[in-house]
């Protein structure tokens, strides 16, 4: 086992940016992690579909941008389809009651709303015996809306729908 390979393996499995401290925790005590990362950045940059990108704080292994679109359908999404579908319904009908969403999406929607709230993509407030749901600023950021105004988001979605 050499330190270069340990850093490579770590960047590969993490699937997210790693800090120097995290990398240092797995290599041998006297390893020059910064030097290793710098040489990996160069090596990956020269050939293949992958790259290692380094910022001040951290470094990440990812697909070079020219290949990203082509392989997107193969990568796993961070929202499961049923949950995503419930989110789409909320975004389009918002502000909308939880019971209305359940009527459209079935009882599983309660679990989905729970997950979407935990992910902070949806927020709710009490509304009679049910709850009123709307998307959050984090939702707008996630999907690249320039605004977090509910009306404008609904309009954009409406336009894209037709």
């Amino acid at each position, binding site marked *: 086992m050499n330190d270069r390979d340990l850093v490579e*393996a770590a960047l*590969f*499995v*993490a*699937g*997210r940016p790693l800090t120097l401290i995290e990398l240092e925790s797995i290599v041998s005590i006297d390893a020059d992690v910064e030097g290793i990362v710098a040489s990996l950045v160069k090596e990956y940059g020269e050939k293949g579909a992958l790259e290692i990108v380094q910022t001040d704080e951290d470094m990440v292994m990812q697909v070079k941008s020219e290949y990203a679109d082509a392989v*997107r359908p193969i*990568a*796993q*999404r*961070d*929202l*499961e*389809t049923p949950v*995503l*579908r*419930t*989110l*789409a*319904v909320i*975004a*389009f009908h918002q502000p909308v009651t939880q019971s209305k969403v359940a009527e*459209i*999406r079935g009882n*599983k929607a309660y*679990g989905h709303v*729970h*997950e979407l709230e935990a992910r902070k993509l949806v927020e709710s407030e009490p509304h009679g015996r049910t709850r009123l749901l709307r998307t959050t600023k984090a939702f707008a950021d*996630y*999907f*690249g809306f320039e605004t977090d105004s509910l009306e404008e988001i609904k309009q954009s*979605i409406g336009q*894209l*729908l037709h």
Partner: protein
Amino acid sequence: MTSGGGSDAVNGAAQEDFDERSIDILVSLAKNGEIDPWDIDIVDVTDRFLARVAELEKLDLRVSSRTLLFASMLLRMKSDALEESEPEDLYEEESVEDELQACFPALKSKVRRHAKRRVTLSELIQELKKATKRKEKSDVRRFMQLQVQEFDAVGLAHSEDIEGQVKHMKRELKRRFALRDQVLFSELIVDNTVEAIVETYIPLLFMATRRQIQLEQKELFGDLLITCKDL
């Protein structure tokens, strides 16, 4: 609330009495610590509820027929629960005394990358389109169901002469069991209407509760297999 006996089921009070009795059974299960009311396992509750129903032989007939319907609703919920398990179940805490807890770390998986990517806006829109289509379909289905619901199965069970139906069914089954061990529910249906199906099903439910026959459904929505136990 008392469980079992004390029947003053006069017409108007019948519905209330039924509700009370069914709930009573559940409450007594909870009191005896047989179910945890805060953590209902529908499969377990159904099994225990049915077992208790079988014990309560002295129930007033009308109440008992409603209780059986209640039990069949529980059974339906049970089959739903068995059919699909909510994803959040996956992440529930486990009890520490699981004997396998210590063993599994010894089985080490290969290390692969499990990163997930973000969803795109166009994927969100695609899902919205699908949700809208599904909704339209289910609205049509609901409309069709409404037509069927005008027939009140519960009312029928309540007002008809159940014991008479049970007797009739017993005769019919004895005749068939004389020749073989098992009979299919579909063979017993003379007329393929909702009314006829319910009229055939309810006496069978009674007989099953009295352990005179056994009802089995090999697959969801499949035919019922009737086996003779003690006719």
